[in-house]
Each structure stands twice: as structure tokens, then as C-alpha cells.
């Protein structure tokens, strides 16, 4: 599988970030495994340590398996001022996990992230590619329920 | 596209498509669309205006709508607003009268006094 993804890109070093994104997005557990790193290393003829260097530098990549849905709650000051800590508390109780952890059913991973740039509607979170704004505790419950229902 | 003239052509066409959002409007037609206006056929009147204007390619005429105008006995009522001229109000409109207003008033600039019920504010 990893070979096919690599083959979509020219074997140049500047495609590394894209290959990593693609591999992570395609993997059902949203992470880059050591086998993947090995394949990329061969394909781009780059040492594995370079790939790990890049992989661990950027906060969006994960080297450990994650859930089906990645929740990224913004922890920046504008969201903090508007009460993101209450949202975090709510998410933790709703999901029964801490930050950086995945629910037992493998459905959700809870993460914090830097500014999502939707500060006018703080507090904000992103689930996969969708942004949810003006969050309240009730709204969060609603959103999580809906996603649970979808699966 | 190779020249500024090509760009200008595209721009003019695109501006025409965006004229509802302001721009180069010579005459504004305001159709009264209150309950009684609609009951008396204001929607037909507005549709006819839109059709006639599109058919004649009158790019500087804008059709819009407003609520009850308080002239129930003369519905459907239409205002023609032209910059620098007094507003003309037409009453008891129907599609045939619309066609005449478009030709006479909008194209040739002659107020159709037979249908006009008021001028000025």
C-alpha cells in the first residue's frame, strides 16, 4: 500500500511532506508506521532518520495509531478567553479519554492544537476536516452524538 | 486571452451578470409585491419585466421588488426610478401594459401617461 502512495509523487525530497500526509490520511488509524517510514526511505533514497526528523517535527503527524475521527480543540488564547477549558473538560468526560488518547472503540482521538484561525467564532474545534465554532458544552455533546450515530 | 481588450470583453459580460449587486444601473423598476399586489398579478408583471428586459438585452435596467405600497385599488403597482428624473408610478399593470412600458418608457424615454398614476415622490 505504501509503495502505491509513494508512486503518486515524484521521488524528490520536497514531496516528503505530501507523502507523509497522504500515508497518514489513507491509514485507517491515521498514523505513519515504521514500515511506512522504511518504504519512504527507499523510495526517496533518504535516510530513515531524516524522515523521522521531519515526521516528529510537525505536530500534525503521528507515529502511533489514532482513532477514526481526530478531534483537534484549539488551545489558543482567543479560544481560551472564550472558555475552551470548559469544552475540553466536556470532551474529556464525554469520551472518557485525556488529551492525546484514543477512545477504546477506536472512534475518537482527542488532541489540542494551535490556532485554527476561526477566532471570530471561538471556541473552536476541528474534527477531521470540519470546523465547529461557537462551541458550548451542549453543542459539543450534540456534535459527538451525531458522529457516533454516523458510525 | 492575449490583450487588455480581451479582458475588457470578459469583464463587461461578467459585470452584466453581477448587475444585481449594484454597478451601472440607469433605471430601477420596483414592483410592489404585497399580498394584494400578488393577488392582482404582481408576480406575472415582474416576470414579464424580466423577460422583456432580457430579450432586449437592456443591461442597465434593474428589476427589484418591495412590499405593500398602500395603493390597493391600483395593484399591481410599479415604480420606475431613473436618476435625475421624477419617479413615475404605474398602476393596474398587466403583462401587456408592461411590454408597452418597456418599449415606450425604458427604451424610448417617453412616460406612458395612460398608465401612470403618479409622478414624483
Amino acid at each position, binding site marked *: 500500500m505504501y509503495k502505491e502512495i509513494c508512486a503518486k509523487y515524484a521521488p524528490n*525530497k*520536497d*514531496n516528503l*511532506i*505530501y507523502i507523509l*500526509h497522504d500515508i497518514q490520511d489513507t491509514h485507517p488509524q491515521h498514523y505513519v508506521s515504521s514500515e511506512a517510514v522504511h518504504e519512504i526511505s527507499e523510495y526517496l533514497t533518504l535516510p530513515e532518520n531524516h524522515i523521522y526528523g*521531519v515526521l516528529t*517535527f*510537525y*505536530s*500534525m*503527524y503521528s507515529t502511533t495509531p489514532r482513532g477514526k475521527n481526530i478531534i483537534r480543540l484549539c488551545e*489558543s*488564547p*482567543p479560544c481560551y*478567553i*472564550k472558555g475552551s477549558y470548559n469544552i475540553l473538560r466536556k470532551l474529556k468526560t464525554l469520551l472518557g479519554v485525556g488529551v492525546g488518547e484514543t477512545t477504546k472503540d477506536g472512534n475518537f482521538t482527542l488532541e489540542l*492544537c*494551535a*490556532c485554527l*484561525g*476561526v*477566532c*471570530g*467564532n471561538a471556541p*473552536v474545534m476541528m474534527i477531521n*476536516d470540519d*470546523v465547529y*465554532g*461557537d462551541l458550548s458544552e451542549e453543542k459539543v455533546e450534540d456534535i459527538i452524538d451525531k458522529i457516533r450515530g454516523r458510525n | *486571452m492575449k*490583450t*487588455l481588450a480581451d*479582458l475588457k470583453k*470578459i*469583464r463587461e*459580460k*461578467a*459585470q452584466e*451578470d*453581477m448587475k*444585481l*449587486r*449594484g454597478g451601472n444601473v440607469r433605471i*430601477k423598476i420596483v414592483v*410592489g*409585491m*404585497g*399580498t394584494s399586489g400578488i393577488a392582482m398579478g404582481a408576480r406575472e408583471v*415582474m*416576470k414579464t419585466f424580466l*423577460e422583456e428586459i*432580457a*430579450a432586449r438585452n437592456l443591461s442597465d435596467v434593474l*428589476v*427589484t*421588488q*418591495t*412590499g*405593500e405600497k398602500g395603493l390597493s385599488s391600483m395593484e399591481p403597482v410599479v415604480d420606475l426610478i431613473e436618476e435625475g428624473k421624477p419617479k413615475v408610478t404605474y398602476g393596474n399593470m398587466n403583462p401587456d401594459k408592461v411590454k408597452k412600458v418597456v418599449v415606450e418608457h425604458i427604451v424610448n424615454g417617453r412616460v406612458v401617461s395612460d398608465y401612470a398614476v403618479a409622478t414624483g415622490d
Partner: protein
Amino acid sequence: MSLKHIDLLICCGSGCISAGALKIKERFHEVLKKHHATNEVNIIETGCMGPCDFGPVMVIYPEGIFYKHVTPDDVEEIVSEHFIKGRPVTRLMLQEEEKTFAVKQDVPFYQKQIKVALENCGYINPESLDEYIATGGYEALGTVLTQKTPQDVVDEMKASGLRGRGGGGFPTYIKWQMVHDNKADQKYIICNADEGDPGAFMDRSLLEGDPHRILEGMMIGAYAMGASEGFFYIRAEYPLAIKRIKMAIAQAKDMGLMGENIFDSGFSFDAEVRTGAGAFVCGEETALIHSIEGERGNPTPKPPYPALQGLWGKPTVVNNVETFGNIPTIFRKGAKWFSSMGTEKSPGTKVFALTGDIKNTGLVEVPMGTTLRELIFDVGGGMIGDHKFKAVQLGGPSGGCLTVEHLDTGVDYESLKERGSMMGSGGVIVMNEEKCMVNVAKFFMDFCVEESCGKCSPCRIGLKQMLAILDRITSGYGREGDIEELQRLGESISKLSLCGLGQTAPNPVLSTIRYFRDEYEAHIRDRSCSTKVCKDLMHFQIDKDKCIGCSLCARNCPAHCITGSREEKYLIHQVECIKCGNCFDVCPVKAIDKVPGIHPDTVAHRAELSKAVNHYEDL
């Protein structure tokens, strides 16, 4: 034949989408179909209209009616009343102090604004090249390519006085001139869209709302300096912006506005999109260049400046999104027109993102030199509720805070710098009297520690030390001399760090010390947080006179530290209290108060503990 007589512009910026704009759009399609009116209304998705707090918002032309806080349930009424009967729905209009603002231009939020970069944002369909052209798009590029030499373009930029909108305020023309003068076989131009400043979202809105404008600005720059290839470096957190700019590139290529021999001028240009992967430091130009090359986004020392040795060692200009956004208008309306706005040293307008405890959060564009008071109270509508204005943080984690005494300061690069703040990318975080400035400074420091790339030690180690000191101050263990230590560390980190991140990271701490020193002192000497934000420096107390003895607090206390009875009322045992605030939230008669300072019981307990520790150490 077109029967369309209404343009319905629905704001589909990320803010309004997060508030449900797409559902509303779907609903409009359904309801219009039901009323057989699909062919009468153009439904247009636009970029950000600005007032995110009112979202979802929409404007209906030809009247220009402005609706806010629209829900899917309102759609039926809008269609049947406004569209079919011509009676706008008053209850969805902005109503303030018993006045109703029907038309967009009358809404106070828009009154003091002058839109240059944001001109089309929220007015055109960002996915339509035709609509961009209708507003005069690509005219500047056409004129430049057919009538001006590259040096003319640089000169015009110089005359306009445009300064980089990304933060530093470096005159744009200097970068262009350097690369223009540099003879090389290959040059690159990069659009920096790695907007990461918490509280800033103008770059996202511009890319989402008017992508062709940014592309046109980039191409004019590329022509001036002789670059044939461009890159948009967009952070991966902005999927919609990435999609829109990719679409714009494809459309421009299709139309022949990009590619080989544009406007028959011999100038050829191609651009592609690169994305980040979550690293704030990549907003720094050398780090950004490394990231495009497929490396860790570590900054490198300057010189060599990217203008001499940038991407893949070639001369490169990195300009911010908003900078590019100003360029087409400068060339269409002239440098003179542009420099007639704003102040002498900071000409033009600036986009600000208003956030925090302010009524109208959102995106605004005002001339440079507009005072903070106008920005916060006139455009922003003032504070939410009855709260008082306390401070404003400008420039995100790199900037500094300003206070009430600065409200009449005109906002431009120099005047902000003089007062210990900075323009940054234009984030304006407004705070009310309930905010603890020490805590806010700690929060920003925490952000910078997290985002430090770790390459140079002043930033990596120094910031961590500053955070540790702030941590102990806010948890009640501050020491005499901590303030001076913070200042000493801050100043050395500013001087010694390699890149902008470290150089500016101490600013929030230094500026809060400068203007709110008494708060730091109260935290350290009195062990008290007057705003009751720092949990360790406040306590909860039950007012016996108000308590009705219902026991709700005791039953909700996870630490089991509230005891009492209906007769004796309830009491919090301070030493065990973990300050979760549950009791405060559940009390039906609001008998629980937050009190600044550490409770005497806790102080005594701590003294006892340290005695025990000392005793052991003596043994």
C-alpha cells in the same frame, strides 16, 4: 432567458461555515424549489463578510439587505416573505439601541472601514474567475505586463510605501528590488500563508474569499523581480483555503492568465500550492523555505537573506498573503491613491481580526493610524455585557498588550512598537476586567515554548525558564526578584534568539510587567489573584447568610470537602479543596463566592508541611 432578480450572497467563510452556513444554503435550495422560485434567485457562496460574531450572515441584493444569525428554520420565512412578497424580514436584521439596520452599508460595523485587500471578500463568489474580473480583476496585471518595465513596477511599489503585512513591516519594494537586481537563472516568489498567530485569520479569509486577488498580486511581484515560479505555502489547518487557491490557479491557467507568454508580453509564470503540517515556526521565512524543501522547518541565520539565497539556493522573495492582496488595487488605482490613506510612515489600510471579549468579533479593514478606541468601540461595538475594557493584546504571542491609557493611540507600525507592542499580523485580542494579565502572559509563553523549534538555546531553554517562573508565580510560590529575573531573561532571549519567534516571544511578559506590574506583585507578595483566575491564588467560600442548606454543593464535591447540615449550613474545608468550581456552578442561591488570595487555613497547612520537610532534611 434569465428571470433572476435576486442575488443571495451567503457568507461561506470558515467562521460562518462553522456556525452552519452550508446547511442554510441547502435549505434555501429546498425551499426555493418548493416555491418554484429556483430560477429567480442566484445563490452565491462568498468569502468572509467580516462580522463573524453575527454568523451565519447573508446579504441580499439588489436592496443590499443584511441578515444575521440566520438558522435553517428562518429560510422558509425569508423565501416566502422577502423573495416572493418583497417584505424583508425585520427580525433577522441587526437591531441595536432600538434601531434597525436593514442595509449592509448602514451597519455600524462597516461604517469606519475602508476595504482594499478585503474589497471583494464577501461580495463575489470566490470560485468564479468571471466575478473577480467583473470587479476589475487582472486589469492591473494586464497593464503592468503590457505597459511597464519590471523596474517601473518596483518604483511604483516604492512610491506606494506598502510595508509587509505579515508582521515586521519591512518595505515590500526593498525585497523586490534586491531580487530584481540579482541576476540568476532561476528566481522564486513565495506567498506566506502559514498564518499561525493565535487570533489572526485575515490570510485564511483572503485566500478563501478572494483567491484570484492574491494570485494576481503574486504575478505582479513575480514580473517585477523576474521569477517564473511561485509557491503558496498554506498551513494544513486551512483545507478550504488550499482548495480555493488551487481552483484559482487552474482557472487562471485555463483562461490563459497564467502559463506561457501571458498577455503576449513574453512573461511566463506558474505557481503551485505547498502545505505545512502544523508548525508555527514555519511562518518564519527561512523555516518556511526549508519546509518546502522537505526538511524540518528550522530557521537558519540571516544573512544570507532569501533574496540572495533562498529556495534551493536561488533568490527568493517571501511575501505575506495580505501584502499580495493590496497589490492589484495599488496598480489599478495608483500608488498615490494608496499612500494618501493611513499615516506617513505606514500608508494604506490594515486588516485586523477582532477577537476576545468584544461585541463584534470578526475581520475589519481600516486605514493605518485609526485609534484603538475607534477600532474596539466603534467598529468592534465595544465590550460584551457590562464589562470594562482592561487590555488589548496586539500581534499575538509576539506582540504586547496595551491598556486603557493607549486607547487613543493610532495603530501603525512605529507607534505600537514604541509602546512595547507590535502590529504582527493584525490579531487584536480584547480582554475585560475579569482577565488576569499574569495568567494571559503565561498562556502566551506556554504557546511559544510549545512552538519553539528547539534549534537555538536562548529560545529553547530560556523560554522554558520564563514559563517555569510564571508557573510558580501563578501557583502561589513566587519569590521576590522573580519579576526582575523575568525581565532579565526576556531581554536576553530577545537579543540572542535566531529567529523572530524567539526574539519576540518575551514581549507579552515584558509588556504585561510594564503595564500591570502591580498584578505581578500581588501574585508574588500577597499570594492573591484579584481577578480570581489563578486557581491557586483564590478560594471558594460559602456565605452562611445566603446558604439554604440544600446540600447540593456537598453532593457534587468530588473531593468530599464540603460538610454541614440544613441547620448549621455548609462549610468548605479549604485544605482539601481542589477548586474544581462544581459547588460554585450548582449552588441554586449563589451563596458561594470566589475570594482572592489563599485561605489562611491553606497557608497554615503549607507552613506545617514545609516544617515537616525541613525537619526531615535536618535529620
